[in-house]
C-alpha cells in the first residue's frame, strides 16, 4: 500500500494553546481515512497543515510525496479540498462557480457530469446564497472533485446537515472512493466515522488516542453486549441475583441496562428475556445494543463524546 499521506511528529501551537501535539499517521492509496474527535481536538489544524494552508511548528508532512509548505502548487493541482470554513459569492450561480473553478485546472473533469452526479442539475441556475446547507456542501464537494484529484480532503462535511442529507453525502463519498481516490476526512460524529471510514484516528486535545479500523477499535473494548428495557414498578432483587456471573446491572428510574463483558454461550438477550418471563416481571421497550465508537471514545477518555 503506497502512502499518499505521511505525517511524523506534527506539532502546532497558537500562542499558549497546543492545537496539535506530536501526531503521526499514514494514509494509504484508496483509503477512506477519518479523523474524529470533539470540537477543538485539532482536526482542522491537522488537515490544514496537510493542505498547506497552515504552517506546522515542527514535524514531517508529505502529501503525494511533496512537502505542502514548499510545493503547494502540486497539491492545488492534484488534490481536492473541502474546507470547514469557506464560501462563494452570494450571487454566483451554481453552474458559474463550477465553470469558473474548472478553468483553473489544466485537465478538469466535465463539470456538467458532476452536476448530475451530485444531484445539483435542477439547481444549476440557482444563486449560491439560495442553496440549502446540504446543496452548498454538495457544491463544495463538486468543486473539490473538479481537478480529478488523487486525494480529496473533506473537513466536517456533514456538520449542520439533517440525517437524510448526511446519508446522501455518505453515499457520495463511497462513490468517490470507488473511483480509486483516496479520502481524508474529519468529523465529530462517531457514527459517521464508523459507517464511512476504513480507518479512524481518534483525536482528543491534539493527540491521537487510538488509530485502527472501526471494527478493531470496537472489539478492543472486549465483547461487550448490552440489553436495556423498562420495568413496570421496581426490579425485584431476585432478578439480579439470578443472572449469570460476568454481568452488571444498572438502573436509572424504570430503565434497566444489563452489560456483559464475557464471551457467552447463551446470548445475553435470551437469558434476560427467559428470566423476565420466569419471574413474571412485566417489561417493555426491550432493546439490544452493540458497542460503537462512542463507547470507544468514552473508555479511552472517560468522557462522553457529545457537543
Amino acid at each position, binding site marked *: 500500500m503506497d502512502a499518499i499521506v505521511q505525517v511524523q511528529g506534527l506539532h502546532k501551537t497558537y500562542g499558549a494553546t497546543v492545537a496539535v501535539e506530536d501526531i503521526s499517521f499514514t494514509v494509504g492509496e484508496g483509503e477512506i481515512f477519518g479523523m474524529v474527535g470533539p470540537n477543538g481536538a485539532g482536526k482542522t489544524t491537522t488537515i490544514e497543515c496537510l493542505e498547506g494552508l497552515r504552517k506546522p511548528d515542527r514535524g514531517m508532512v508529505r502529501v503525494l510525496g511533496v512537502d505542502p509548505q514548499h510545493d503547494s502548487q502540486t497539491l492545488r493541482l492534484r488534490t481536492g479540498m473541502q474546507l470547514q470554513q469557506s464560501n462563494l459569492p452570494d*450571487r454566483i450561480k451554481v453552474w458559474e462557480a463550477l465553470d469558473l473553478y474548472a478553468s483553473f485546472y489544466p485537465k478538469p473533469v466535465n463539470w456538467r457530469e458532476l452536476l448530475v452526479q451530485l444531484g445539483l442539475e435542477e439547481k444549476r441556475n440557482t444563486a449560491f446564497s439560495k442553496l440549502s446547507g446540504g446543496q452548498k456542501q454538495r457544491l463544495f464537494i463538486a468543486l473539490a472533485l473538479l*481537478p480529478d484529484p488523487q486525494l480529496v480532503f473533506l473537513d466536517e462535511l456533514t456538520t449542520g446537515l439533517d440525517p437524510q442529507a448526511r446519508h446522501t453525502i455518505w453515499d457520495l463519498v463511497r462513490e468517490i472512493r470507488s473511483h480509486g481516490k483516496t479520502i481524508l476526512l474529519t468529523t465529530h460524529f462517531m457514527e459517521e466515522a464508523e459507517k464511512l471510514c476504513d480507518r479512524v484516528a481518534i483525536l482528543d486535545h491534539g493527540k491521537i488516542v487510538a488509530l485502527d479500523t472501526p471494527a478493531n477499535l470496537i472489539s478492543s473494548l472486549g465483547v461487550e453486549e448490552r440489553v436495556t428495557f423498562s420495568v413496570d414498578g421496581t426490579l425485584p432483587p431476585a432478578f439480579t441475583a439470578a443472572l449469570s456471573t460476568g454481568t452488571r446491572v444498572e438502573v436509572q428510574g424504570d430503565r434497566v441496562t444489563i452489560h456483559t463483558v464475557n464471551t457467552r454461550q447463551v446470548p445475553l438477550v435470551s437469558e434476560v428475556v427467559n428470566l423476565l418471563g420466569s419471574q413474571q416481571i412485566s417489561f417493555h421497550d426491550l432493546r439490544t445494543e452493540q458497542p460503537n465508537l462512542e463507547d470507544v471514545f468514552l473508555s479511552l477518555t472517560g468522557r462522553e463524546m457529545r457537543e
Partner: protein
Amino acid sequence: MKSLLKMTWVEAKLFLREPASAFFTLIFPLLMLLIFGAIYGANPVPGTDSTEAAIGALIPAFTGMSIGIVGLMPVTITMATYRENGILRRLRTTPASPLMIMAAQVVVVFVMTALGVLLLMIAGKLVYHVQFTGNALSLAAGFTFCSLSFFGTGFVLAGTMPTARTAQIVAMVLMYPMLILSGAGWPRELMPAAVLKISNFLPLTYVINLLRGLWFGESWGQHLLDVGVLAVMLIAGVLISLKTFRWE
C-alpha cells in the same frame, strides 16, 4: 489566461447583480449631469456659449468623480468581503493566483467605469449638445491612466484594514472630502484659498485637473504635476496591493 477571462466574466456579472455598484458606476454620473444641467440651464439653447461650456466642464469632473467612487467603494468592499467571508480562502485551495484575482477585478471595474463615462458623454452630446474639442485618443489614455492609478487604493485598503466594515468606513471617510473638495462637484476656481490648499492634498484633484485639461484639448506636457502625482500613485498602488494581499 483562460481562467482570467472566465473570472473577469463572472466578476462582471456579479458586479451587475449588485444593485448599488451598478447604480453608482453606470447611472449615478449620468444622473449628476442631468441634475447639474437642470441647475445651470433648464433649456439649453444650442450656440449659447456659457451654458454649453459650463456643462462641458462637468463631464471630465464627473468622470473623475466616477473614478474616485469606483476605486474606493466597489473595489474595497468586494475584496474585503471576499476575504472576510472566506471566498478567497476557497480560491486559495486552487491554482488561482492573487495577481489573477486582482487583475479580474481591475478589468471589471475599469470597463464598468468606462461604460458609465460613455453614457455620460452620450447624454452630454444628445441633451446639452456639448462639443468635444480635445483629442479623443489622448482623453481615453488619460482616463485609463487615472483609473489605474486610483484603483490601487481600494486593494490597499482591503488588504490593510482588519475587517470589511472598517475598510468600508475608511473608504467613505476618504471619499466624501475628495468628492466635495477636489473639483468634482464644483470648479476649484470657486473655492476659497484655504479649501484650495486642502484640495492639493487630495489625489482626486490631480485626476480632475488632468482630465479637464485633456477634455479641453490641452497637452500632457501642460499637466506634468498631475501626471507625476498619479504615476507615483500607480506604482505605489500596484506594489502595495500585491504586498498587502491577504487570503484570510
